[in-house]
């Protein structure tokens, strides 16, 4: 799979994840375990899109 295809799939997934998480947070709130896990998934995807998983502890992303 090319980098462009990968990024397209990840971007589409990110949209779905964010929409699903927003619905979940509205009905159940953040404190529910599933909402926390969805948020973690979202950040894992964002890392891939930013090539961030390879950055060091001192990288500027917070």
């Amino acid at each position: 799979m090319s980098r462009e295809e990968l990024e397209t799939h990840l971007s589409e997934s990110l949209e779905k994840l964010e929409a699903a998480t927003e619905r979940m947070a509205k009905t159940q709130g953040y404190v529910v375990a599933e909402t926390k896990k969805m948020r973690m998934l979202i950040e894992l995807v964002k890392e891939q899109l930013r090539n961030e998983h390879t950055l060091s502890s001192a990288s500027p992303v917070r």
Partner: protein
Amino acid sequence: MNILCLQLARFGDVYQTWPVLNALRRTHPTANIHLVVRERFSGATVGLSAVNKIVTLPTEFILRPLISGHARVESSLQNLNAWLKELQGTRYDQIINLSFSPVSSYLTDILAGPETEIRGYSRFSDGFLNIVDDASSYFYAQVGIDRSNRIHLTDLFGLVAGVELCDGDFATEASLLPDALATQLPKCEYVVVHLGASDKNKTCSIEKWGEVIERVLEVWAGAVVLIGSAEDNRGSARISNRARVIDLTGQTNLAELFSVIRGAAALIGGDSVALHIGSLTKTATLNVSFAAVRFWETGPRAKGSRVLWFDDPSAADAARIARELIAMLQKTRTGHPIILKEEDFGVLYSLVGYEEEDFAWSLTRALYMSSAFPTTTSSSTILAFQRLTELGQLGVEQIRSIEKGKDNKLATSILDQIDDLVEQVGKLSEDVAPAVRWFRAEKTRIGPGEIEGILQSTERLFSKLRDIGQLYSINQKLNDNLNRENLTWKS
């Protein structure tokens, strides 16, 4: 006691965490210590004896259903749940998050129980970032390539973890090299040259290293051992075809590098994993560093180490590098600018002949370490502090207005704009940026709760911002108003 440590950054960060893990083991000899690292960087845990269990985060496995073309969110969540089960079976008394990332903050929050002591990033009950301890707040605000922190990352990790590091925490156990590698090592004294780095802006070109090696071998009777990845091996043949040069690029794994580097008289390289291994094997290291790296935070720690700094790899002077390496081996000085590793903890380096703007670092020390606030004669810096004073006071007034029940909507809107304006002041003046980042970090730490408590905490913070800025406004006013009559010499 069960302790979980998260280190989800790269190879170098995992190695820089080893001393903290050793310190945790030393201070908690019977604790059950677990470490989470990325699968891709798990090679940096081989030889780490301080932990009871290493758990790898399988990012590819978790995200695979999302990249297959049909974005199967449920399947991805199932994979994440399956992995989390491995960790959720243990009730952790302490979670130490040394990753400082959004992913790690959610992971910490998911795994923490009601009684778990957390250090590092986590999440509040409303999902916002929770910077739990003061050291992590310092990290959030002041650490990074475009900032002025001078404390080494390993020491900051120690502060977050709540351990005081000692020399013994930087030791590792010796391991045997496979015969095939051991027989290639020179019988005479040798230096190790690490050719590569994770980024080409963090090391010299192969040709430049070749020039350095040639100059060193002209005046030194020892040998040179080249190390690096398989990719470095593709270029190393251009420079290794000479006497007393042994090319091990592409032949060693990370654990084997410990033995190679431990036996060396010195190590030389850019900002790379080899440098951090050298800190653990206590091998004197000449770190050739560039503007893309902050050597204060990630430089070498072994006794006798030095840093030679250039703007970028194209500016690196091979003759100078070679001279410095020879001087380091002979424990002498060249007389040229150099950065010496002189302290054992905290701020490790002394600049000799190099200059770095001090004000921002001095301000950082004043904000966090009770040092005196630095003076300045810069009118732009004084003006920036005056703006912070005004914005701090405006913030206090809006909070009081809300507390009295007046114009809440207007006051809230003004408060939002104040945040933006404070940010702008920090962008316009590098000197005051540490104060702006301190303010932003501390504001982030005000979590959800009763409105009265939130208002009080926010008002206190705006007051502090105002007071810090006022130090410089008052000085300037006194300076302007001081009567200078009768101060001069009379004839």
